């Protein structure tokens, strides 16, 4: 087994009248166990603009109802650039340049893909980096 941790720190001195300083660390386990996730993939891609709901991460039967975790970062630098993150057509939100996200991905069925859309109006690619930690994928024959 492996030990992988994910730590978030949220901080602000002026969002509230008192300082905000929140930190949390999660250890990434297989579903329902204390056995660490042992498989992962990372990548960096240039998402072309104009196409809707391109599959970034393909849900597979082996991942259904498991404890995968997904990290995505928008690496563009123009503050107006955003990529739309969706799951099975349901929009989660817009990830603007410099933003990142981290979430569990239970892949309730093989349609629960994680999809990205780089808006046509941007007329450039959306460059994103990603990592997924998971419990296995279903391989397909050539």
């Amino acid at each position, binding site marked *: 087994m492996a030990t992988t941790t994910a730590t978030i720190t*949220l901080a602000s001195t002026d969002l509230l009248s008192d300082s905000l300083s929140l930190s949390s660390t999660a250890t990434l386990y297989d579903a329902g166990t204390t056995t660490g996730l042992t498989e992962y993939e990372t990548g960096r891609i240039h998402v072309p603009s104009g196409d809707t709901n391109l599959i970034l991460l393909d849900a597979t039967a082996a991942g259904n109802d498991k404890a995968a975790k997904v990290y995505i970062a928008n690496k563009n630098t123009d503050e107006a650039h955003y990529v739309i993150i969706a799951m099975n057509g349901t*929009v989660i*939100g*817009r990830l603007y340049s410099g933003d990142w996200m981290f979430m569990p991905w239970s892949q309730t069925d093989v349609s629960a893909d994680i999809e990205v859309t780089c808006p046509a109006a941007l007329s450039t690619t959306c460059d994103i980096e990603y990592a997924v930690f998971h419990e296995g994928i279903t391989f397909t024959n050539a």
Partner: protein
Amino acid sequence: MATTTATITLSSADIADNSFSISNTATLTKAGSTTGLDKTSGLRRRTLASTDSVDLIQLDHFQSTGEVITENKAAKLYIKNLGSSSAEHVKVCIGQEDADADTEEIGRLYGGDWLFIPYAAVWTSADHNGNQDVYVIPSSGDSVTLEWMIIYE
């Protein structure tokens, strides 16, 4: 304007032959600008003790109290399961509660797990039809506490 940062560190010394580490800091700004997000729900806590689904973030509540979360902007959502159980989880879903066709389970937070995601927060109607609420479903009737916060414009 406010300056709020979100930093993530992902690390493992043994998931691969070589150590793995990602670190990234985002400054949370309004959509398409360099102005910081300046509204927040504040950090909230809710304890659940049944397997019933609970509308954790009911957008109509924000609408009706004047705390409008402008949809399709740069809002961010943080949720943490404060429990310690590795066996029990809380499903996190986006969409209209009790409307399977319009909802998506995005993932399951086991004890100690957290998420931080952009949040489109689409509000359609006061009767919740088509709203992008966030609702949660515990896997057991044991008490579990969640903390959550939205930072928005």
